[in-house]
């Protein structure tokens, strides 16, 4: 399995008037070719910050990034901005959460997609428009010739997201980074988009890094999962391992908090994780999750746990890892 993206000990801090805030603390993971990795967490987990850091989309003046982000061997955190620009949109595509604000409201759809092509490939304008048309067909937009000439506000949420996917795929990227791609969509439209992404994944063989808080989406799309909490990676494993044999108490809590259609209230309340996410500006000793964890003991408040193997493909950072026997 060739590794396309390798992230080592990524640290991201934001400099604010009241001091600096560490949003991402020492996170490492890798993405292989044609693999879909999901980064899961709630608000404050640092998952979106991580995604934006991969493409160096943060404000350079107020952000301090350290660590290593190696894309096909090249260290992205050290290349020049010009080189970074040739990578963005070209070899690494990105889909954002809110399609309405990510599309230019004053430009026709066709032109926006064509621009994504023209930025990185030396083709004629008409050739770019032809390709744009083909892309729109690929992402399942009906009546694409007409849609090409329309503006974003004339499209529905689902269609806008398809346009974003088309733009992200325009230059056949090796990796697609999707930041909460379905969160803003209705559930039936979400189903369409998930199907589309699965189909594109099979067809193009691109790797996907999908950022989400929705474990259902993870179950449908991801091969491997990284669970983040308060800026720290808590657990990583294959989708099957995470869902059926979670080792970290936070993961267990998260899975238990999701209702499923085959249980109802008479069978007891949903699993609660009491308390709330710690503020990123506060200094921490020990495990970030200790204060809310039902398994915590004194060591949890003193030493931050290291990531340890639960199985060859499964790691968790916990002093009291839960070991479920393999059925």
């Amino acid at each position, binding site marked *: 399995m060739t590794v396309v993206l390798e992230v080592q000990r990524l640290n991201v801090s934001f400099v604010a008037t009241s001091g600096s805030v560490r949003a991402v603390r020492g996170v490492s993971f890798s993405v292989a070719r044609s693999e879909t990795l999901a980064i899961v967490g709630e608000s404050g987990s640092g998952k979106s910050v991580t995604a934006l850091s991969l493409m160096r989309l943060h404000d350079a003046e107020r952000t301090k990034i350290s660590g290593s982000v190696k894309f096909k061997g090249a260290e992205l955190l050290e290349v020049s901005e010009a080189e970074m620009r040739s990578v963005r949109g070209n070899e690494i595509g990105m889909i954002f959460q809110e399609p309405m604000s990510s599309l230019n409201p004053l430009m026709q759809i066709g032109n926006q997609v064509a621009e994504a092509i023209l930025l990185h490939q030396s083709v004629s304008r008409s050739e770019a428009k032809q390709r744009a048309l083909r892309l729109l067909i690929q992402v399942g937009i009906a009546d694409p010739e007409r849609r090409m000439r329309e503006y974003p506000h004339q499209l529905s949420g689902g269609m806008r997201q398809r346009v974003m996917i088309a733009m992200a795929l325009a230059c056949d990227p090796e990796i697609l980074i999707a930041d909460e791609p379905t969160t803003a969509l209705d559930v039936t439209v979400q189903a369409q988009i998930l199907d589309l992404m699965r189909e594109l994944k099979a067809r193009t063989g691109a790797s996907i890094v999908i950022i989400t808080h929705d474990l259902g989406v*993870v179950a449908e799309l991801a091969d491997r999962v990284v669970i983040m909490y308060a800026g720290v990676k808590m657990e990583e494993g294959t989708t099957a391992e995470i869902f059926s044999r979670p080792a970290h108490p936070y993961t267990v809590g998260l899975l238990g908090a999701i209702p499923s259609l085959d249980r109802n209230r008479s069978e007891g309340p949903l699993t609660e994780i009491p308390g709330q996410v710690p503020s990123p500006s506060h200094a921490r000793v020990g495990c970030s999750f200790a204060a809310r964890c039902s398994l915590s003991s004194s060591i949890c408040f003193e030493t931050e746990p290291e990531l340890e193997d639960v199985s060859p493909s499964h790691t968790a950072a916990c002093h009291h890892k839960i070991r479920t026997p393999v059925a």
Partner: protein
Amino acid sequence: MSQPALLEVISLKKHFPRPRIGFGPREVVRAVDDVSFAVARGETLSIVGESGCGKSTLGRTVLGLTPPSAGAVWFDGWRVDGLAKPQLRKIRRHFQIIFQDPMASLSPRMRVRDILAEPLVNFGVVKGRKAVDERIGELLDMVGLARDAAVRFAHEFSGGQRQRICIARALAPEPSLIVCDEAVSALDVSVKAQIVNLLVSLQDSLGLSLLFISHDLAIVGHLTHRIAVMYLGVMVEIGDRDLILDRPLHPYTRALISSVPKTRGEASRRIVLAGDVPSPINPPSGCRFHTRCPKAFDRCKVEEPKLRSVGTQRRMVACHLDISEQGMS
């Protein structure tokens, strides 16, 4: 039903005329178009649907926060739509609402104590400063917040905590019904679970009725007794939770349920609807769902189906398909 329903909504309509552009007929957004249902005491009825289905408008119209265009709302035997403002204000104590956005639902510059005191004082629930403060303490206990939260400002709390404050505010006048308008949608997964559990336990201990408006079928499936499915302003199916979730009859309900991503087990064959939700300004003719329905036929394009009971089941469906108790293939 042995007992009269607590809330009864009959043929409710809410239309929003759009500002006139040029000449010609005025466009109207038919947000809620002839909806009828009832909620019993101590029961949770969930209204589910996607954006544009009119569920939020329905919630606010039922409470009188916006006047209906047609139809009637009966609460505990009293007709509440069309009441004059002073009477409406008095009767409001019995039905309250929790909104979606915990950040914007609380006055940014008010202390929690004042926010909770407002309904207590307005409705005369308790009198006297001491009694009010004591009751505020009790309300905070009920929703799982420390009593010293009373002196703090709303903006000092996190999303989940603010939603608890909103719940405390809704409970203050001792209502019989609370409308939850996407009350947990803006919260993190783990916090959602806390608030859902809180609502369930409050309902059990206080005998509250809940009108739970949501797009999240999984959450709804956990806490509801009955489900009503809305599409483009009309109700397409309504009935007991188990019936609807295990054996959905309306094609839209089936598609909705199958769209919920599964975390456990294999993903069952999914019904993916074509196209997007049409605009509520110009709903399709006949059955509003026919443009996306995998089972539409000629009659669907022409005639709008009415809700009708299905055999002896506790449910109603609005569909032209020949639906028998055995369900469809």
